[in-house]
């Protein structure tokens, strides 16, 4: 005991009650509350941003899944579409879309008249209300089914982008006044058609299945080629990254001695995980296209580039998964006379499989959303042809990819493409959601804790 402690003067107001906090304590407590509030605000800001991001994309893009179409009875005049009269598709193909356009225009005018709608628009303005793509579609349909010539068939044609925008709220009478592509009279006619039941807005399957369309036909642009291209790339990534990644992880985790070479590999893997994605694009352009001579815009090149990008993710996940298998499993197998190789392949690997699959799915999801490297290897090209089946060399055919298609849409001036781009993002996000849910499901279902 010393006297010093006893004589230390009490700071603050010594006279106060314990029940009443003094000024300093109150200040400290207020700071505590404020600090806590900062944290809460930060978390909420993050979540708010997520909500804002998703609502912005959803509100701009959901309308891409609906499409306005017009029902038209088209009389297919045989003399005009098949001048030779022999129903030979090769001969009929000589009639271009210019031959079909007046037919469709007359059919549309006829449909309007028979519905009892009066309009003062000239035929040209009426023809402009349907998409140019419809003519091409009609021609393709007739060439595929020459038997329908001479009949009058009901055709569902796409309304033009502005008419479609009108029923989605993007185009109004005010904007139509200023727009040289559409007039208020045309909008009136469209409304009249809707009342007559000839014009309707329905689910837009074509957006998911059809190929891209030119910059003047946003209403016809679809994601078919892009989805197929992305799917092919995922096949390549899965076929290459999974076996290579697992093999590399097994070596590093189970066999590699501690030496300089192993260190070098480890450093490389962790650095590759952080290399900007565009650098992989440069690699793909220089090595796979310029040096190895693979074709541009091909899913195989995209797949190879994405494989190299995904490898670190898969290796890191696989190693963690192998590490979590307890050593007792290995000891037991070795004790029964299995070789190290047998121990790994018969016992450790199967037990680590759920973790490996989860990591692979997450890696694939990352690869699916990657855009920048694909821009450099030519996947921005405008591709209308579907790539062939993989066994027919479809991996080498030109294709695009979903995220690149989004970028492509954003580069076009027609405002209707904003809707298409956002719609494509929604499709992309749905795929990602499915993949991530699958990963979570796998983890929940098969994860074992020792």
């Amino acid at each position, binding site marked *: 005991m010393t006297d010093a402690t006893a004589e230390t003067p009490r700071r603050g107001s010594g006279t106060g009650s314990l029940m009443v906090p003094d000024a300093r304590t109150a200040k400290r*407590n207020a700071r505590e509350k404020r600090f806590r509030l900062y944290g809460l605000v*930060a978390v909420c800001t993050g979540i708010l941003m997520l909500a804002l991001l998703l609502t912005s994309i959803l509100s701009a893009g959901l309308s891409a899944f609906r499409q306005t179409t017009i029902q038209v009875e088209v009389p297919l005049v045989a003399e005009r579409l098949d001048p030779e009269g022999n129903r030979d598709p090769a001969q009929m193909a000589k009639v271009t879309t210019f031959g079909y356009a007046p037919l469709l225009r007359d059919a549309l005018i006829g449909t309007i008249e028979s519905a009892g709608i009066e309009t003062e628009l000239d035929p040209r303005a009426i023809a402009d209300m349907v998409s140019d793509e419809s003519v091409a579609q009609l021609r393709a349909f007739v060439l595929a089914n020459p038997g329908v010539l001479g009949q009058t068939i009901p055709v569902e044609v796409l309304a033009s982008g502005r008419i479609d925008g009108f029923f989605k709220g993007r185009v109004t009478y005010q904007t139509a006044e200023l727009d040289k592509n559409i007039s208020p009279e045309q909008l009136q006619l469209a409304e009249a058609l809707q009342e007559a039941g000839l014009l309707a807005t329905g689910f837009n399957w074509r957006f998911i299945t059809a190929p891209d369309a030119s910059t003047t036909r946003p209403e016809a642009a679809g994601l078919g080629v892009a989805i197929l291209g992305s799917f092919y790339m995922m096949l390549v990534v899965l076929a290459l990254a999974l076996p290579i990644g697992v093999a590399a992880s097994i070596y590093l985790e189970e*066999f590699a001695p501690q030496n300089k070479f192993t260190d070098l590999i480890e450093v490389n893997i962790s650095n590759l995980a952080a290399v*900007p994605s565009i650098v992989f694009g440069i*690699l793909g352009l220089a090595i796979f296209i310029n040096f190895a001579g693979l074709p541009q815009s091909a899913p195989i090149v995209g797949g190879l580039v994405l494989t190299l990008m995904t490898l670190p993710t898969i290796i890191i996940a696989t190693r963690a998964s192998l590490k979590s298998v307890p050593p007792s499993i290995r000891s037991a197998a070795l004790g029964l006379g299995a*070789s190290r190789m047998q121990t790994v392949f018969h016992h450790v690997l199967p037990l680590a499989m759920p973790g490996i699959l989860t990591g692979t799915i997450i890696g694939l999801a990352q690869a699916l959303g990657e855009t920048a490297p694909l821009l450099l290897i030519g996947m921005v090209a405008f591709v209308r042809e579907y790539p062939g089946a993989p066994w027919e060399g479809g991996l080498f055919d030109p294709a695009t990819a979903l995220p690149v298609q989004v970028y492509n849409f954003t580069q076009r001036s027609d405002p209707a493409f904003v809707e298409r781009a956002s719609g494509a993002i929604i499709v992309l996000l749905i795929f990602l959601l499915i993949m991530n849910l699958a990963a979570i499901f796998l983890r929940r279902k098969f994860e074992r804790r020792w």
Partner: protein
Amino acid sequence: MSPFWLILLVAALALVGAVLGRRKAMASAGGDARVLHSLPNYYGANVALFVAAPALLVLAAWMVIQPLALDGRVSAMIPETAYEDAGALNLLMADVRRIAEGLDLAVEQGALTAAEARAAQAEDLRARLAEIGVAVGAEIDPSTLVAAQGLRMLDARADLVRTVVILALAAAGFAFTYARTNASYRARNSVEFAILLLLIGASTIAILTTLGIVLSMLFETLNFFRQYPASEFFFSLTWDPSFSGRGGASTLGILPLLWGTLYISIIALIVSVPIGLFSAIYLSEYAGKRFRGFAKPLLEVLAGIPTIVYGLFALITVGPLLRDAIASPLGLGNSASSVMTAGLVMGIMLIPFVSSLSDDIINAVPQAMRDGSYGLGATQSETIRQVILPAALPGIVGAILLAASRAIGETMIVVLGAGAAAKIDVNPFEAMTTVTVKIVSQLTGDTDFSSPETLVAFALGLTLFVMTLGLNVLALYIVRKYREQYE
């Protein structure tokens, strides 16, 4: 024989070898598998391995080397008067190859007989090749045709030699192992050694990738510096590529691009570091289990969203919003794409990155330090500010550096949100551009790999790679040092 059939044949031989090898091993053990050193299947696998592996490896090497070797001999056949420089020779060689392939295809489809193909004349050949769908650019020159015929002959001869060599290798491999197969042969060790080699091969791909990145960019960068002075590239204050084609007066200074990159990255860090750090602190120190279980995955969703989505968000929502709400009323500019747009959106993207890394690091601070601080009467926030954060500081700095490296290398957000005008300005509502945007714009569309306007992209890529690599190495070093401190 085409490589496909050759591979199939070797595979079939390997299969036969496997059956025979297994049978011989069993026979030498008198039908009792227990006498064998290894399980019977290993003997089969061992024979198959020796049949297939050397043959296929040589085949792969052959397929790479043969065109290179033949090219040299064929280009010597073209008279030197027929071309001016190396570029023209390359074009000629491409024609030679296409004609040779076209002739082969014609024979294959039956449009020409083998003898006709050999005697083909230069005049009508172009039309005949066009008939079977092979387009040859220019009229065929007789000397080109001679070279093409030479190429076909050499190719045919080399293919024959290849087939013989590969099959001989496969047969030799079979004879060698089959003779050695008996009950005491250690087939398992041999097979497992091969598997181990395969595993090692797989893990060296990481090194090869890095090597590929560095070499591919280094070569083209050196090419670029041969055509364009390096000092101009690093110190010029203007970026103004000419679009008129080669040899135009382009000024390709990297500084405006670096300025844009750094400006955007700094704004992104100003947004993401406080939000990310406070989120991490709140989630790890204050939040209840339920709130954490709900908020943490939501924040991490931000990290799983592809960058193109953020790019579109910047383009259609944030950009116009900033322009109409702030920039235009204040007279700071009326461009929707701006440094601020890209920076803000990139900041949002980096929030989960900073928060999850910081979360790990804060959790790694030992509980004893917290308990000591509470024991001395500190409030929770005082503990965090004066004990936990100083202890976690190196790790947090590492996390911020990693986030910075992400920001510098990010592409899609800046392509869609920052604009394409290369300038050095302090107004954050002006459109500026970054290194990544210019890599994309110089390498998409028509590219000419002999012009400095295209090659500059490789120099930009290398600069980017070096910068991010430096930041990553530094960050990983700091984080690792920090981890060791508490382990």
